[in-house]
């Protein structure tokens, strides 16, 4: 399991709020039994309709840090959404806020989502508009985004933050380590396993 402390690269700005997971990956692309190939379908409908979607802009190809607005990833719990972003090449997200299930899915696949104040997101948009190739770093230890001329503070819930820095964002191993305690709780519950009763 790898520790994730810092992501360096270039940004891709995605203006707008309440961008839901149906838009990130439309439902027809969920007809699959693996996550392979989802990268090409990310924002499929938005991209076709807009004709000038940031994900198609030549100067944003190869970018790895997504900049978003409020309540990003709301709606469906489909992990296909962060998977599609990751497979397109996104390694971190900086935004005003995230929907909760989406945020948890991102943690589980090692895709850090940092939160920044609206004016700092605006600052990022301005900087990227002036120079689409501007290098930036999301530093999870310092909890800041660094640009050549500025530093912007970011936040992350403590649990997720520790998991990225400790390299324990894939929780299965840790959870399984508590096997004895799991069995104890299971045995102590006032209700049995659902199938133990009835028909």
């Amino acid at each position, binding site marked *: 399991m790898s520790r994730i402390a810092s992501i360096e690269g270039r940004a891709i700005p995605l203006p*707008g709020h309440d961008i*839901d997971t149906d838009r990130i990956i439309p439902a027809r692309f969920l007809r699959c039994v693996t996550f392979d190939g989802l990268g090409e379908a990310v924002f499929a409908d938005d991209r076709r309709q807009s004709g000038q979607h940031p994900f198609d802009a030549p100067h944003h190809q190869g970018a790895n840090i997504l900049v978003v607005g409020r309540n990003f990833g709301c709606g469906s719990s489909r992990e296909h959404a962060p998977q599609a972003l990751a497979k397109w090449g996104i390694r971190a997200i900086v935004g005003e806020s995230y929907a909760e299930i989406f945020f948890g899915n991102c943690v589980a696949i090692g895709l850090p989502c940092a939160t920044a104040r609206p004016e700092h997101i605006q600052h990022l948009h301005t900087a990227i508009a002036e120079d689409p190739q501007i290098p930036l770093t999301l530093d999870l230890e310092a909890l800041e985004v660094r640009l050549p001329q500025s530093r912007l503070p970011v936040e992350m819930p403590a*649990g997720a933050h520790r998991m990225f820095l400790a390299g324990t964002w894939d929780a299965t191993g840790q*959870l399984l380590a508590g096997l004895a305690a799991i069995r104890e709780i299971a045995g102590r519950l006032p209700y049995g396993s*659902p199938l133990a009763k009835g028909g």
Partner: protein
Amino acid sequence: MAVSRATLFDKVWDLHTVGTLASGQTQLFIGLHLIHEVTSPQAFAMLRERGLGVLYAERTVATVDHIVPTQSQQRPFTDTLAEQMICALEDNCAEFGIRFYNIGSGSQGIVHVIAPEQGFTQPGMTIACGDSHTATHGAFGAIAFGIGTSQVRDVLATQTLALDKLKVRRIEMNGGLRPGVFAKDVILHIIRKLGVKAGVGYAYEFAGTTFEAMNMEERMTVCNMAIEGGARCGYINPDAVTYTYLKDRDFAPQGADWERAVAWWENLRSDPDAQYDDTVHFDAAEIAPTVTWGITPGQGIAVDETVPRTEELPGEDRPLAEEAYRYMDLAPGVPIVGTKVDVCFIGSCTNGRLSDLREAAKLARGRHVALGVKAFVVPGSERVKQQAEAEGLHEVFLEAGFEWREPGCSMCLAMNPDRLEGRQLSASSSNRNFKGRQGSASGRTLLMSPAMVVAAAVSGAVTDVRALLEPTP
């Protein structure tokens, strides 16, 4: 002994806490895990890659709902991708010994319809499912939430999840609902007032006489859409209505176990002086039949209102409103009543249960779907379909010009052949009006109660259902 001042959420959370992880998160035991064909195949693949098994197979229940066609359910499905998905679920359930309600079993259906109707869902449980509408099960006083595929893997392998504890917001609503106002209108109204992200970080406790007066199916409609308000889970304290619904269901406790369970459930209710992180109040009498006009479930208005003008909205909501006017092709200041509809859909985990179909049939009886409108009814499960047919509801719908389909998620999210085409506008009893949600990248959705969908279907346009309730001369 200290007097308990806990919410139901606190009590259920504490009971299922396995421990605290190094990250500070809670390791929470999941009493009931529900799976379906869309979000589970990759989870099983991850188990195999890691050489892991399923720790408590008897605590997982599977069905197939999202991709099933609602016309011909003949196997193999015409859609080869859908066929591949159902095969994967069949194989995974067989290999790991998981109970699976397949098409034709008599008990298949939308996962959030079948678990309650069979009595799997019970008060005090923790429930997880790879589907955001898992919040539905909170109607029973369970703590239920949607998870992603990697977390499905974690539940299969460990029966636990790593989670941050949620805060609790009490949403108190008192009073009776006015005629023509349904549970769907209640939750659309709440989301309209609180917004689509106010619930992030919270569980919503729906309390007060309005919810106490609701039957279980109405409560499920309310809790189902907690997630549309940003709240990962919503719940209602269990009471006599809950117990009456559950008693004698297939997987409900029986005999002495039943008595013990009821005693436990009674103690689970939030204490009268429980501490909440936030409380909001609503008056049921202020709610009218509600319909969405935009591209999020929070963009709702009373059916007799006009599409809001930007200047009437808070500054932060204006850019999204501008986007919605363009996408929906609805002008600010124009009444929503009279908006022409192309497709009318009754079904989904929000409103595909028997009481929804009864209410819809009551209005459809003696009326007919307007010319040029496609209207269809998709029961939430095989049992719902069977019961509806036993009551003759299907005949009412068919005579009124509605199609009567096989159970599944259908056009709520259009992973099966049921979908909008081009810029079609649908009146839908489902839960999401996102851009492209119903299968066409430019398709448009107006969310409303099943009764309002019938009113739209028979009029060919958005109609105030209260006009249909008035006695005909």
